């Protein structure tokens, strides 16, 4: 069972309190964008996800805690969390991920 650092609680908490919520940084098109989107583009937004070997940006939900969704960089090979950050923050750069790994 992993320990996950919740960026809102600012604590490491047991994985049991959390739920995985899919890939991060996939932004839902607004109504204007939706209207303009081709079926192909819409289906790409809906159904196509990266299957990354290595550092993956993903969403987690602190369901049995502060109730907040947040993002994480997690390595899909080692399962380890490198860092977690709030939904409003941008995907960390490779450099930031590297720095976090060495922490």
């Amino acid at each position, binding site marked *: *069972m992993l320990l996950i650092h919740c960026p*809102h*609680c*600012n*604590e490491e*908490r*047991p994985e*049991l*309190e959390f739920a995985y919520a899919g890939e991060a940084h996939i932004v839902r098109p607004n109504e204007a964008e939706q209207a303009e989107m081709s079926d192909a583009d819409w289906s790409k937004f809906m159904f196509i996800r990266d299957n990354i070997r290595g550092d993956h940006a993903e969403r987690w939900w602190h*369901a*049995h*805690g*502060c*109730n*907040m969704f947040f993002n994480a960089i997690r390595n899909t090979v080692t399962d380890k969390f490198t860092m977690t950050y709030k939904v409003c923050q941008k995907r960390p750069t490779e450099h930031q991920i590297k720095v976090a790994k060495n922490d």
Partner: protein
Amino acid sequence: MLFDQGIDIPEALSGDALNIALEPEKARFNVRVKSKDVAAFKKASGFKFPVKIGATAKTGTQLISKFGPDEWVISDDAKSREKIAKKLSKLAGQFVMSATDISHRNIAFNVSGRLANEAVNIGCPLDLSLKSFPVGKATRTIFENAPIQLYRSGEDTFQIECWRSFAPYMVDFWTAFSRDIA
């Protein structure tokens, strides 16, 4: 009696080493206030909203716990329910906020005694050392399959709340535990 929490605590759970008691009827309100308004809200309401997630503020019978970035739960004696409801309703006119009565949603247990820590840890994966979980801390967490609220009111005293329908599961768990502490 109309009021019925629908749960009995077996005698085996009333001992010196471990004592589990049902808390009486309470008033509970879930309150959300936008972060930027909290200071003004506190001033206008007089509610002692704690700042950090996991922190609590106790004033007389009233306990205010902060569970999420913009989420607090006010709990108090049942008789103050109307008063708090009125106050929140008035505040709702002044602030962008949400207040919801959840008085009957939860059942509260008082878990005390030398084995209180263990009675929590048989189902809850949090580290309950005083360093990690000091007196006064409150959080939502999990007790095996039951989502719970955990509040430490003393070194050897916890208050555990769960949704009403999960209460028998909690009591059954502690009853099983009581076999091993005789």
